[in-house]
């Protein structure tokens, strides 16, 4: 039973949380400018890296707030948690930390 540090409530057991998938995937600015394949990239495709991964969590059985976390997918260790609007922290990441513009994911 892992502890997850909710940015608002502090450390709580993982059963209080729900997982929200990869972070920093913005809803495309204009979905109708995307062809089906680009749209499918947004809807269905996510990264699955080995190592630090930015993902979203929600403290469902607590404050009900969503937040971002950087988690190592090898050890499951939470490296850091940060706000939904915030950029992915670069100091713990192995990948370039350039923030993605809205809609950009769909064409990557």
């Amino acid at each position: 039973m892992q502890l997850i540090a909710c940015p608002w409530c502090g450390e709580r057991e993982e059963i209080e949380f729900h997982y929200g998938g990869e972070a920093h995937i913005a809803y495309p600015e204009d979905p109708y400018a995307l062809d089906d394949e680009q749209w499918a990239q947004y809807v269905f495709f996510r990264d699955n890296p080995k190592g630090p991964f930015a993902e979203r969590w929600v403290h469902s059985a607590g404050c009900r707030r969503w937040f971002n976390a950087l988690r190592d997918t090898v050890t499951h260790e939470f490296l850091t948690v940060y706000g939904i609007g915030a950029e992915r922290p670069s100091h713990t990441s192995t990948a370039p930390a350039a923030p993605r513009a809205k809609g950009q994911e769909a064409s990557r």
Partner: protein
Amino acid sequence: MNTPFRAPGHGHVDRDTTLSFTFDGTAYTGHPGDTLASALLANGVHHVADSIKHGRPRGVLAAGAEEPNALVQIEAPFPEPMLTATTVELYDGLVARGLSGQGRLSSEPDTARYDTMHAHCDLLVVGAGPAGLATTLAAARSGARVILVDELPQPGGSLLGSQELLEGAPAKAWVDEVVAELDGLADVRILQRTTAFGHYDDGLVLALEKRTDHLGAAAPPHVSRQRIWRIRARQVVYATGAYERPVAFDDNDRPGIMLAGSARTYLNRFGVLPGEQAVVFTTNDSAYPAALELADAGVRIAAVIDAREEVPEHWRTACDERGIGIRAGHVVTGTSGIERVTRAHVAPFGHGDLGERQGIDCDLLLVSGGWNPAVALFSQARGTLRYDAGIGAFVPGEALRTVRAAGSADGTFTLSGCLADGVDAAWQALSAISRTGQMIALPTPAPLPEAAPTRVLWRVPSPQEGLDGVLQFVDLQRDATVSDVLRATGAGLRSVEHVKRYTTIGTAHDQGRTSGVMTSGIVAEALGVDVADLGTMRLRPPAVPVAFAALAGRNRGELFDPVRVTALHPWHVEQGALFEDVGQWKRPWYYPRPGETMDESVLRECRAARTGVAMMDGSTLGKINVQGPDAGVLLDRLYTNLMSTLKVGRVRYGVMCGVDGMAIDDGTVIRVAEQEFLLTTTTGNAAKILEWMEEWLQTEWPDLRVHLTSVTEHWVTIPLVGPRSRDVLALVAPDLDVDNDAFPFMSWKDTTVAGVAARVCRISFSGELAYEINVPAWYGITVWKALYTAGSEFGLTTYGTETMHVLRAEKAYPIIGQDTDGTITPQDLGMSWVVSKKKPDFVGKRSFTRAENQRDDRKQLVGLLPVDERVLLPEGAQIIATSDIPAPPVPMLGHVTSSYRSDALQRTFALALVRSGTRRIGETLYVPLDGRTVPVTVTDPVLFDKEGARRDG
């Protein structure tokens, strides 16, 4: 009363008190402080059970949790299967029998209580032996919050089973002194009879405390029998000791063959002499104290067989003084005896070749192949292990950030080393959490001469040609032998994990404590590789068997899962309703009258709703209050249709989709005020939809000024349904103009119902004229009863979820999650009308134009009428095109999602998802059922009142 094998002046059992017990039908006695195993041995009982596969007599090999053989079934006072006799504390009236591997669950319900405790600490110390006590004391004196758990009834660990001196006095004096100090510290908690069995993430350690097992029938009923401790520790020190390892030789499994250290424990902790004449077979120094102490207590040591060529002089001297002969460079090659060992066969074993054998009579054969640190929990914590070739064992590698091992668990085997290592571990642990450990004065053990190296020996070659390893047992519980291991490697297996699964070694209750490392050694020899490279089996929780009852704790029966009931629940119970579980909710399913079958009840309830008036408890409907200036914007983005244009006082039906365009929920939305909406969700979906809405609001559109609140339980919701519902409502809501023009379909009014402020919506989930009466939950029962009374002259009938389902299915109102499966769009449900063409975008819209969504062979919702009107199709039944079932793979066209008997239609009917369903209307398809196929006609899904003529009454 005296038993023949008690040594006077030894042990910590209370000889002034006698306990009676029965084993395999024979009555015996023992004393408080005994285990069942020690009491049996004190009575001269060595044969405990026969082995599971070969039926070979087996005895007691060890004195603790590592025991592979002596499994027993407790019959009284409470039946319990599969316990090791070495860990069962003796109590008066115990009735047990030996087990051949498999126990039998009790058929009686377990009336004992089990519970759970949560605890937090700076430092958790596991094991109250010399190292663990030193760790605890050093940490506790610094003011840290410390929990010490220990599996034995009393602290001391290995000190209880030895005659070692500290400061010239028996070690127990030091133990008592330390424990007395710890007991006086408020931040120290000592839990005896408590076994840590699992190490999980972030310092969570689970431990099992046996609170009243040792009291037998005298256990007070109000005290929980066992308790699971969930301990969150910032730092953990495993001072779990070490397990002695046997050596494999022919017929090494007979009763009377025992680990040397365990025999020493039986003497010193229990005052038990495990035999009269012993042969001691060792590969290291540790068996000598056992031999000497047993000799001093009166056991004749026929010989010490030391596999090493060189025996340290001080051991030789001590043996000479007692007339014990040592045969250096010898091994035991086999044994004789059936229910008890009678002779050990020994032979010189120089450089891999056995010399001439000779038999030595004995009734006890003590074996020591060295010691394996107890690393199960350290390993569970993902600590790495390192092979130490000097002792032939795996020891903890680097300490982890929050977990470390101390004492013999860390590969330190001298008493002074264990004490120092314990203090060191405390300091390191405290330093890791920025605290400083205290210096403590350590007691000085009696000086020991330098230890001589161990001869690492996994097995002795079999002296009998053609019998190589067949009678050399590795895992005694699984009856797995050296030849089984060799068969595994012969079959090409190279990993000990694979060998474990092939041979089942290490999979029994003892987790291979006496067999795991030996297996690695034998595999390494067979493959010609280094044990260090081969590694050992990974150890997983639970480290000891734990009863499911203990893990469940209080979460059983009614407390297994939270039960949610509505404010009207007691009334339903009083009326004899049967209930259906919907999520955690208990919902009335139907209200049978005396003598009615379920079918009869439901048909009656349906008839009342369609021809008279009926009402149900709809309070479980999920309700979400949406407030704020941008409330309409948020709803427009999440529903497929337009909500912002809804006028105050009006109601609209809406569907939500995922980004993939698939329907995820539906319900009604009412506009309460300009900046306030109230929406309903499917009962089981309420939490999910609230989370879904929050997800978009918080992560995608945080600029929207909207607040979402769950108000499900604030309201009691009563659908009042049927042609006479208007008459009933008029009686209880005198202020309300119930005329169809004044109060039209899909509108709502605030009014007074039965004297209670109420919100009445004109919506219908049945197709009939219907009202949904909402009142604050506190007043729900008053209003419900008033409606019931007012309705009596119209024959008002209460109905449950089953009738609700029939009524809505007759009208093809889908249940999201029953008639859909996450791959169904609103269009597939025949509800294109609910999808806005005007809105530029909403969640799901873009996906509707994907090629996949345009296919004309998508599954669509249709009605099915079985040609035989009496046949009720099972929900989930598959649908095929032909009356004969073709050869597999059978092309499936879809499946039945809802199926009922209809009073209105006077026949059975179903809803189904069928490929190209809409195009197939009028076709006959087939449903395989009980080995035949049932013909069904595909129809429009709306089977009743297609024109919607009934909704206005």
